[in-house]
């Protein structure tokens, strides 16, 4: 087989031209037809898929692929190995700070999202606030209802076993509040005082919970009578005799971030999707199912009137709570965790 010089030259030119065109398209504002979404799984991811993903895919043709679960370790391994497949990832407030410090995430493209009105604390350079969640006091309907963390700590007038979170970020601030620290003076957290306060409740704590479903189940099983819990997890147990309120609740935000080095075309598709998340009507649909409310200040008007007290960010409930201080936790996480483990082993 022989090729003329000319034919070879032509082919080379054509190939080169094709490459130039392909690269040109790639670098333009091209939108991928799919992106990968690191999600925690469970009820919230299901609701997200049904209320946000499906209509979005139907309208734009962009397919969203779930990567479950979205642990911090997985994100770090993915970014540090240089093989970034996901364009969105689910993170907590403390983890958002950690991810920033470890250079694992890149800025959100707010210009492209051009969201509707959002609570200002939900808009960060590196994080899109998806929903609020709150660590609240929960109890069985057949015991005396506590009105404050001081009541929760008072085992004489509110007898019964307790369950508290094994994550210090959800328990130590409560311990400080129970000892009488005023909510506006909570941070910087007085660790000595918080641990002294924990010493008092320790004999009554039978379980330190590690997963969100645990406290609700423990209450339903009558294994404990009082627990701190994430509001969405106990709101769905009302029928089964679990009660909660938002007094001195620890209000926190769940974030979506972009892993550093996400494929640009897929990131653009992901940003397009995030715009959906600023729509209060959709946020209301989502909140009705999981009781975690989104970023829109006008959301409260769209929530069911009879259940308004169950949502963390109605104006009345939001005023009762204390917003988490991710920065403080980031700066002190290491120290607190060691002390927390040491304290627990000392029991």
């Amino acid at each position, binding site marked *: 087989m022989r090729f003329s010089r000319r034919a070879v030259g032509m082919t080379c030119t054509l190939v080169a031209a094709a490459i130039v065109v392909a690269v040109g398209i790639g670098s333009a504002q091209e939108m991928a037809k799919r992106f990968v979404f690191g999600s925690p799984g469970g009820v919230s991811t299901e609701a997200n898929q049904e209320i946000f993903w499906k209509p979005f895919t139907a309208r734009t043709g962009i397919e969203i692929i779930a990567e479950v679960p979205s642990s911090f*370790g997985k994100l770090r391994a993915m970014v540090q190995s240089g093989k970034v497949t996901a364009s969105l990832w689910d993170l907590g407030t403390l983890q958002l700070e950690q991810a920033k410090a470890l250079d694992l995430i890149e800025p959100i493209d707010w210009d492209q999202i051009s969201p509707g009105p959002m609570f200002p604390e939900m808009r960060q350079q590196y994080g899109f606030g998806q929903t609020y969640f709150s660590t609240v006091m929960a109890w069985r309907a057949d015991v005396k209802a506590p009105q404050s963390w001081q009541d929760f700590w008072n085992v004489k007038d509110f007898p019964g076993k307790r369950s508290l979170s094994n*994550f210090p970020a959800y328990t130590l601030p409560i311990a400080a509040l129970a000892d009488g620290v005023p909510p506006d003076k909570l941070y910087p957290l007085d660790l000595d005082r918080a641990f002294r306060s924990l010493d008092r409740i320790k004999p009554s704590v039978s379980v330190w*919970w*590690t997963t969100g479903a645990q406290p609700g189940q423990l209450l339903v099983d*009558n294994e404990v009578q009082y627990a701190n819990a994430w509001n969405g997890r106990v709101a769905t147990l009302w029928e089964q005799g679990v009660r909660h309120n938002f007094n001195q609740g620890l209000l926190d935000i769940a974030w979506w971030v972009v892993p550093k080095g996400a494929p640009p075309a897929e990131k653009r598709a992901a940003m397009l999707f995030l715009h959906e998340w600023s729509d209060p009507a959709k946020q209301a649909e989502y909140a009705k199912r999981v009781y975690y409310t989104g970023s829109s200040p006008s959301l409260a008007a769209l929530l069911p009137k009879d259940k308004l007290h169950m949502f963390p960010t109605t104006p009345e409930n939001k005023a009762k709570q204390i917003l988490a201080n991710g920065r403080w936790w980031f700066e002190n996480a290491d120290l607190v965790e060691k002390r927390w483990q040491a304290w627990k082993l000392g029991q």
Partner: protein
Amino acid sequence: MTTGARRAGGEVGRLPPGSAPDGGLARPPRRSTGFVFVLPLLLVMGVCFNVPIVLMLAWSVKNPTLTPRHYQEFFATSVYLKVFWNTVRIALVTTAVCVPLGYPLAYWIRFLPAGRRLVALALVVLPFWVSILVRTYAWIVLLGNAGLVNRMLLRLGVIESPLGILYNELGVIIGTVNVLLPFFVLPLLASMARIDDRLLQAAASLGASARTIFWRVFFPLTVPAVSAGAILVFILTLGFYVTPAILGGGRVTMIANMLDLLINQLPDWELAATISTVLLVVVLSCYSMSRWLRNRAV
């Protein structure tokens, strides 16, 4: 025990000749060609498993240059040492419970007639087919304050308030023993099955009592399997994660839970690598110690 020994004696004649008297003792001649067949597995294990593990463990000494810092931190922080010791203690207790529970069970199955032996074996293996998560949660239903055990004891009037069986070290140990008992029983049973019945017959014909036959003939032959099984249970317990996480109620922290914390929550991967390395060294020394003991015994 007497009936067991007698039944064994009566059964010997009917045993198939397949159970060779020299079972396991004869060694096949070494051939270099065998190596070729192992090569694919070796490559997969080496490249996909061992190399990444070594790279991860290397995190313990570099960050980013060579440093002993993480080991210093590990040995200087009492929390880590406490968790480590806690884990070793739970592993020791689990082993100490598994051996006296598992040995009679294996012994009993060993002398069952073939058909019933199969049924008994199936019952031992059955838990393997049930997810460890399901089994662990099942213990909550059984052992909780409102669980079957406490409710029954309360109704019978044995106790006045529910016993704290769950969400403490006792709960964790019940869980680990449940999961690991088959790991002890199965190899032990295999080794017991290899013991030649004619040895026991010979002892009986020389006038030894059932007790003497057991302690002087049968038991010594099973000692290597018992120690191997015990070491296996001990090592496996060291790496338990799900059981302490669920049945410990957050009051029992074992190494794996600590590692999860260091990897997913804090995140301090260097320290996690350090603890993993120390754990690996402990496990390997346990293993080589058992090898050494066994070689010395033979």
